[in-house]
């Protein structure tokens, strides 16, 4: 991330979920201002009832009284709830990095007082973005930290967890059907859990599919603590990578022999699929290819701009689009991630004509002379350019596999049918 002064693009009204564990309570211990957006978002998402804020005063910080206030607040929160929460998270913000709170002692005391409730701390401290793991990685890990190891191990079931995504896969995604064809009974996702028991069942799954890097540390910890193997399966828009991902997934599940080098039916359309899973994948791939052709036809040589608000790996998306023959003119990498570094280097080396925008400065962007009639994939670049044609994709949400390709292609083609109106 650039360390210059940073200009923020407004995300007013854009839906953002409130991540949490069912039947849990989140108590934020921080200065009042720190939870303005958390609290408004929670009300918008109807999640405020599972949330409390214990506002620190400057005097509390000077005297250390906030720790005692916390114990009293937990008492009061638990007394106010009809049913005690199964998990209780205490959120600490940037200021805590400078206070030296003895978290272990605090948690030990809480666990002793309330043995039926699981307590954990969670740090929301972007001020520490320059050291160690990112806030997002750590928060994801904490969300899975309440899972209990299953005993005995034979109770592990035939389910797969999706980790790192923020929204359920769209109904038309082929992944669940492919998994079913491979004998997987259930696909589990944290935010789809309605009860604490459903949440605990995540510990029974046999594989963690990590759909976005933000879930990688959580999966790594779950592998160590819960003995659940993990597979990195980031959302990708390049057909060859999607096939490679399904091949790795099949092998991880034991559905494809380890020695097999490719999914022939996908690579060579004329060959009959060997099984139902391959048939599903082949059909999905065909749909994706047709969508690419249609979108290419609609867009012609029109410029395309992609940004990091649309895809977790915007350079990977740009590379895929270039491969399909689209005229990619710029990548807005306002939120660049390490997992995209390899494709970034590829783009910089192989497509030097593509502008890479890392600044949110309006003047800097105007200096690039990007075409106003470009199809902008992502809100940030569309907002900055006031682009008339805009694909409202957000962080790959709801997408995976070949469905990600056809969905994106359909959205790009459809974007020409309307003109976005921008204020200001």
């Amino acid at each position, binding site marked *: 991330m*650039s*360390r*210059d*002064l*940073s*200009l*923020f693009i*407004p*995300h*007013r*009204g854009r839906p953002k979920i409130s991540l949490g564990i069912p039947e849990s309570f989140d108590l934020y211990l*921080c*200065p*009042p*201002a*720190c*939870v*303005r*957006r*958390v*609290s*408004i978002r*929670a*009300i*918008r998402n109807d999640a*405020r009832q599972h949330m*409390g*804020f*214990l*506002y*620190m*005063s*400057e005097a*509390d*910080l000077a005297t250390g009284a906030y720790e*005692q*206030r916390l114990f*009293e*607040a937990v008492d*009061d*929160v638990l*007394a*106010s709830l009809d049913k005690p929460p199964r998990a209780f998270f205490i959120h600490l*913000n*940037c*200021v805590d*990095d*400078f206070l030296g709170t003895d978290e272990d002692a605090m948690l030990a005391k809480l666990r002793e007082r309330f043995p039926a409730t699981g307590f954990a701390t969670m740090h929301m*401290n*972007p*001020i*520490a*973005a*320059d*050291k160690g793991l990112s806030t997002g990685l750590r928060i994801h890990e904490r969300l899975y930290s309440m899972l209990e190891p299953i005993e005995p191990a034979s109770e592990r079931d035939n389910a797969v967890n999706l980790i790192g995504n923020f929204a359920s896969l769209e109904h038309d995604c082929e992944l669940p059907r492919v998994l079913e064809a491979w004998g997987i009974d259930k696909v589990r996702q944290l935010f789809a859990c309605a009860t604490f028991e459903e949440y605990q069942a995540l510990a029974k799954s046999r594989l963690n599919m990590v759909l976005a890097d933000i879930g990688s540390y959580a999966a790594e910890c779950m592998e160590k603590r819960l003995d659940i193997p993990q597979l990195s399966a980031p959302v990708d828009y390049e057909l060859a990578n999607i096939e490679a991902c399904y091949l790795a997934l099949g092998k991880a599940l034991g559905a494809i022999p380890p020695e097999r080098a490719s999914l022939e039916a996908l690579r060579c359309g004329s060959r009959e699929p060997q099984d139902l899973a391959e048939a599903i994948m082949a059909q999905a791939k065909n749909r994706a290819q047709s969508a690419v052709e249609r979108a290419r036809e609609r867009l012609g040589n029109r410029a395309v701009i992609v940004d990091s608000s649309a895809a977790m790996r915007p350079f990977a998306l740009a590379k895929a689009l270039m491969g399909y023959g689209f005229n990619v003119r710029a990548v807005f990498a306002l939120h660049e991630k390490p997992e995209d570094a390899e494709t970034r280097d590829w783009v910089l080396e192989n497509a030097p004509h593509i502008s890479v925008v890392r600044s949110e400065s*309006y*003047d800097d962007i105007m200096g690039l002379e990007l075409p106003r009639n470009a199809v902008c994939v992502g809100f940030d670049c569309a*907002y*900055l350019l006031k682009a008339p044609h805009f694909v409202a994709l957000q962080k790959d949400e709801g997408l995976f596999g070949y469905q990600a390709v056809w969905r994106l292609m359909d959205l790009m083609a459809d974007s020409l049918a309307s003109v976005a109106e921008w204020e*200001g």
Partner: protein
Amino acid sequence: MGGVTLSRLSLFLPSFAADYSGVCSCLFDLDFLVVMNDAACCTRNYVDYDEPRWSREKATTLCSQLRALDVIMGDEAGTIAKIVDAAHSTSPRGIAVLGSPVPAITGMDTSGMAKEVEALTGIPSIGFATTGFATYEQGIDRACHGLLKKFCAPPENRPRTHRPGEPCEGGGHEQPTLPAPKPRVNVLGITPLDFGTVGTDRDLESWLQNEGFEVGACWCMGFSAEDVRQTPSADVNLVVSAGALKAATTAEALFGMPFVVGLPIAGKQAAHVAASLRQAAASGSSAYALVGSADTERALEGMRADANGGCRTLAGASSSKANESMLIAGDWVCASSLRSALRLEGWPGNITVASLFGKRPAFAESKDAAIACERQLVDLVRNGNFSTIIGDPLLERIPGTRASRHVRLAHPALSSNLFETEVPRYLTTGISKLL
């Protein structure tokens, strides 16, 4: 629940707009480079939840991306260098350096940083020791006060308006050929945090013009740095929200400008405010245009006499409502003005004003409450037996409010953009319609 400890626990309402949002909101129109010394969240709070005017061409606040190492090493020079660099490329009219919670607890010297920035750039710079522990009205107060001190000087030709008892030019004889100048009025304290963007700022200007006033600077919507400089040349300041109360008293002390506190809500309240402004401009004495406060009872009597027959009653109000009680929760000035409007229109019951923002002002009545925490609001609602509660839609989340009739008047400093369409347009919507 009870006691001091619980006073900081919030279970129902959102966190309110912070002091730094108040400063940013006040400076939004002034072509300032506003730098928030924070990691990211504070700037994001302001941009996404407290500034509806933010747009592609109009974006004023930048984030310094403060990191732990900067704080530990006390590296203010790095931030200053970034500000100077940005100032050279954007050439702003002024620069503001703001604090946030971490700078507040580590003692970052925003005023010192601003002085250094000013020395290095030659651009007027102000440091605001905002903390994120305080609410928005304190930020508006800081910003108004800072601007007054930095940019305003006493006018050379005060007073503009003829005041009783003072000699006119030409040896004290009237000069009939020259029409008296219109009293010039500044508006203090209009921001989207209290009034949204529904048009109240434009309504205020139109209303002032229609009432025969010259419109001065409208702090803090639709004004410029030049308007700020011209502020002391006006005859009177009209204070429409509590965040500007101290600015008004500062302007009175520094420049001898009287002020009138009160929002001209459509109807008799507007007439009351207009009369108070004329009187203040003529007499040089400040006033609260709020019926019920000691200062304005006399004015009310005058209005009643003018109306030749006293107040007519509010539609629906009757003697049967005399025993009813009402709670108005919101900004001190807005809520008190609503009460004043209700009384002027003949509402017979008891009305209590409560504000979640700021200390009790001088015009508060004995039963009015400065709500320091959510618990106090819960207790007030539980014990108040209010038949009607006027305030933000989110007040419905407070236990006990559902037993009362709730008149929803959105207050963005509380509910952000959740109820944008329910922000009242006070000057064009009569009190009967509001209720």
